[in-house]
């Protein structure tokens, strides 16, 4: 089968999405199923066939999702209904939409690796409990309660942490 000439191909748009909380392990296949499920359950099969959503790449905390040109709005609304990925609570924050993946790459922020590694070993106290810092970015601090039970991630700021 010959490849279609560019003028006859579908026009596509690429949507750059940040996955919160930072550091979440992104399984591209699972994310594809999550996006597909969100689009189908919200808009139905007929509109999903028009949107033609696909997860193109996942780099760090960022994901590029493809759709047909003109259906970005529908895709964005569907993406905002994704709340879990592999049973982990997540939020997909839409950063930008573009006609090329290259232009979206410029908008991806690369996290400072060294600071993250040191942050992981840091301990702190919140609400009288010992916690481990899971992620730190400016004022934002994500901590995980120490222990075997109830080790939920808590989303705090530096001001919330108690003096040791």
């Amino acid at each position, binding site marked *: 089968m010959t490849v279609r000439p560019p003028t006859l191909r579908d026009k596509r748009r690429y949507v750059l999405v940040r996955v*919160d*909380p930072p550091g979440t392990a992104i399984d591209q296949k699972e994310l594809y199923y999550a996006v597909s499920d969100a689009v189908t*359950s*919200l808009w139905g099969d007929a509109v999903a066939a028009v949107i033609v959503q696909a997860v193109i790449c996942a780099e760090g905390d960022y994901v590029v999702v493809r759709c047909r040109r003109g259906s970005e*709005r529908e895709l*964005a*609304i569907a993406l*905002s*209904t994704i*709340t879990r990925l592999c049973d982990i*609570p*997540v*939020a997909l*924050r*839409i950063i930008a939409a573009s006609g090329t993946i290259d232009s979206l790459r410029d908008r991806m922020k690369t996290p400072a690796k060294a600071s993250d590694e040191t942050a992981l070993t840091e301990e702190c106290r919140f*609400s009288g409990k010992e916690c481990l810092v899971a992620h730190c970015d400016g*004022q*934002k601090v994500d901590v995980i309660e120490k222990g075997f039970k109830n080790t*939920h*991630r*808590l*989303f*705090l*700021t530096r*001001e*919330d942490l108690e003096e040791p």
Partner: protein
Amino acid sequence: MKITDAAVCPYPNGDSSVRRLALEAEVLGFDSLVAIDTPSGRYGSVEVRSGLFIRNAGMKDVIAQVKRAKDSGAVISVKAGDAGFNRGVVGLRGVHILRGVHAADRNAFDHVTAKMAADNGVAIDIDLSIIIAGRGIARQRAIQRYRDVLVLERRFEFPLTLSTYAHSVLELRAVREISGLCSLLGMDIPDVERAFAGVERVTTPPKPSVRVIS
């Protein structure tokens, strides 16, 4: 006009501190939040207003709690029940918002309650958490109920509020995303803007129509 999320639940009800919720809300485009069971304050450029959510209570209980909280400056909201309860709540001085209409009976919010809400300046809340996290019949029913509420809103012009009811920063949504979600209910941009300003509208005391100059 202030863009307000009419209900968030900070720690210990949720997993995010009120400061963090305010920080994220600022990034997502909000000017103020109503935080349930949390004292008021200002964090950065976001104003956090204290909120009281009365749920699973009888009419007597509601009256007592509203009486107690009336002068605290908190935004008082009550969970919707059956038609009689809702009429009673909407007619109660001090109640600002009626929540959870999507979960009440089909006829629990009718044209009589709508007229009373418009007369008394009580807002009806559109809880987006069910539209965001719900799937299938639950979400369809919520959309259907809210569409019905909007039909009454266009006729009687009672205030509306929008809330994400976020227990976590991950449950907050950007203003643009909320506009998109509201379009599912048939709301256009001016409707959404009016609903974002709903909390301000119901908590600001009405200006007297007659002003005595001397």
